[in-house]
């Protein structure tokens, strides 16, 4: 069987082609300076989130480090301990820069975790639907349609109303909101791929469905999935921030960026802008750069726009 396999799929040809493809994608990606800047932004945001405990001058969760007398300090003001709060402090004397770095960590963590789980679930369901075809496919896609016809924010709102609060619950809600996008994307490309000759060849070689789907079909469905994945992750981060802002997302003990912004709202009306504005800028930087990267990827990978 292995000899027949070698004859149909020459071993060294496939990886070389794949490598050339990735190189082409990178070259076209780098053509846009905005996209490169966005990629740098994504890397910066991820590094800031990962390294938050090292970068932050203060641990915002450690109450002993908070100086309640130094609350609501303007950006650049010095605290009584002689430390300069570059982005000011909030109502509890928490250093905003530290709060933002830790908040970013939570926001990104929730966004990426829900994105990865939704991707895995949606991918498996989409591939299964495409492979099964017929009634199973129609049924699964009907659920996807119904799910997608309801706006994400509403579905998440209801789920959180039902589930209660907490990080794992918000991840679950985001996964339920997002899986359908992935399922639909994978199914659409898988249906095209399943009709190609290489799948027929693989079937003739009596490969099992799992091997055909995951080894042969899935790699060819990855480009659109990559685009959807990037953009959905940005959506997830924005959605989490929105839910936290509305007071039904992350609990107060683990303030994500959305919660920080909500905290600053009452002070904003009296001119103390920094508590809301700076976390918002961080959130914006994260979402915008992820979106821009996804956008450029879509332009490159969409065959209809190929020059």
């Amino acid at each position, binding site marked *: 069987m292995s000899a027949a396999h070698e004859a149909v799929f020459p071993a060294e040809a496939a990886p070389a082609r794949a490598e050339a493809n990735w190189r082409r994608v990178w070259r076209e990606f780098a053509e846009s300076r905005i996209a490169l800047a966005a990629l740098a932004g994504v890397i910066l945001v991820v590094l800031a989130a990962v390294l938050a405990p090292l970068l932050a001058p203060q641990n915002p969760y450690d109450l002993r480090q908070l100086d309640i007398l130094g609350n609501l300090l303007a950006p650049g003001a010095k605290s009584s301990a002689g430390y300069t709060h570059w982005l000011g402090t909030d109502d509890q004397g928490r250093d905003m820069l530290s709060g933002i770095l830790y908040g970013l960590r939570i926001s990104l963590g929730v966004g990426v975790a829900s994105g990865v789980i939704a991707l895995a679930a949606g991918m498996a369901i989409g591939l299964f639907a495409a492979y099964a075809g017929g009634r199973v496919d129609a049924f699964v896609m009907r659920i996807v349609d119904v799910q997608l016809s*309801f706006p994400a924010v509403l579905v998440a709102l209801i789920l959180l109303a*039902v589930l209660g609060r907490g990080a794992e619950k918000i991840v679950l809600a985001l996964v339920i909101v997002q899986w359908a996008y992935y399922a639909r994307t994978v199914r659409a490309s898988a249906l095209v791929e399943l009709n190609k000759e290489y799948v027929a060849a693989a079937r003739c070689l009596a490969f099992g469905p799992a091997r055909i789907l995951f080894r042969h079909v899935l790699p060819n469905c990855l480009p659109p999935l990559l685009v959807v994945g990037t953009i959905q992750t940005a959506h997830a981060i924005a959605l989490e921030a929105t839910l936290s802002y509305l007071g039904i997302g992350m609990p107060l003990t683990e303030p994500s960026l959305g919660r920080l912004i909500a905290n600053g709202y009452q002070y904003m009306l009296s001119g103390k802008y920094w508590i809301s504005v700076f976390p918002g800028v961080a959130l914006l930087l994260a979402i*915008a750069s992820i979106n821009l990267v996804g956008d450029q990827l879509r332009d490159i990978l969409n065959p209809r726009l190929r020059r």
Partner: protein
Amino acid sequence: MTVFVIRRLMQSILVLFAMSAIVFFGVYVVGDPVEILVSHEADEAERARVAAALGLDRPVWVQYFAFLENALGGDLGKSFVFGIPAIQLILQRMPATFELVIVSFVIAVGLGIPLGMYAGYRPNSAGAKTIMAGSILGFSLPTFWVGLMLIMIFAVEMQILPAGGRGPVGSFLGMQSSLFSWTGLGHLFLPALNLALFKLALVIRLARAGMRETLLLDYVKYARAKGLAMRRIVFVHVLKNIMIPIVTVLGLELGSQIAFSVVTETVFAWPGMGKLIIESIDKLDRPVIVAYLLVIVVIFVLINLVVDVLYSVLDPRVRLAARA
């Protein structure tokens, strides 16, 4: 066509039943409304009395069937908090939300289609790049944050527009709306703009993508070869075809706009349905949550139906496919 509409209606009713069950049972698990409504000093008898008054002492499925029976008669239960019928509470708040949604739609479509078409027509011009950068911002900026920034700029710093609330409503032909009074319009402007931004970005993208893909098609080349003015090709032939995806998406988005108003209404303290649902979730006011969701589902189902019908009017290919 009739068969198509009837089949869609049947599906819609099924969706409605499924949703009502999911929502009802889901919300039942949330918590105990008696805890919230009864004071802490109340004894067991008092609690049982309140539970019985609210119908909470019966098994869930009995409650559900009672609810379903009443729902079919238009009665979705009484608000635990306000003591008036939930549906009435929602209907009272509905005009404020609709007003907001409609004005935001007008802003999104009125600005989005021309901007997007321009960006698609001259994709490499500086104007197009600015428009697209703006639309990416519109997508990226979370609605609530933009709302806060609008309040900060226009209400706190410049002090030219109010920071929130609906303001006085004017009366015109028996309809009460902020649209009919100047102060009301002032109150309406910021929230409507805030709500419109996301849709505006979406319309710009759809119009641009449609323009770019349509301009490459053979019929455009043919029309140009025939000697038609570019103006006519773009505004008559291309516009008609790019309207198909835009109408579909916008129609579907009308529902999501109503849902999204939850965020805008909370930011701007706008007394609509969205603010009501957030307050109800906070207070575990179950009948209102369930009624709100059912109202939203009905709105969605109706919108989907209308969009499908419109779609087949706009695109003859759909009609042919449905007949075949």
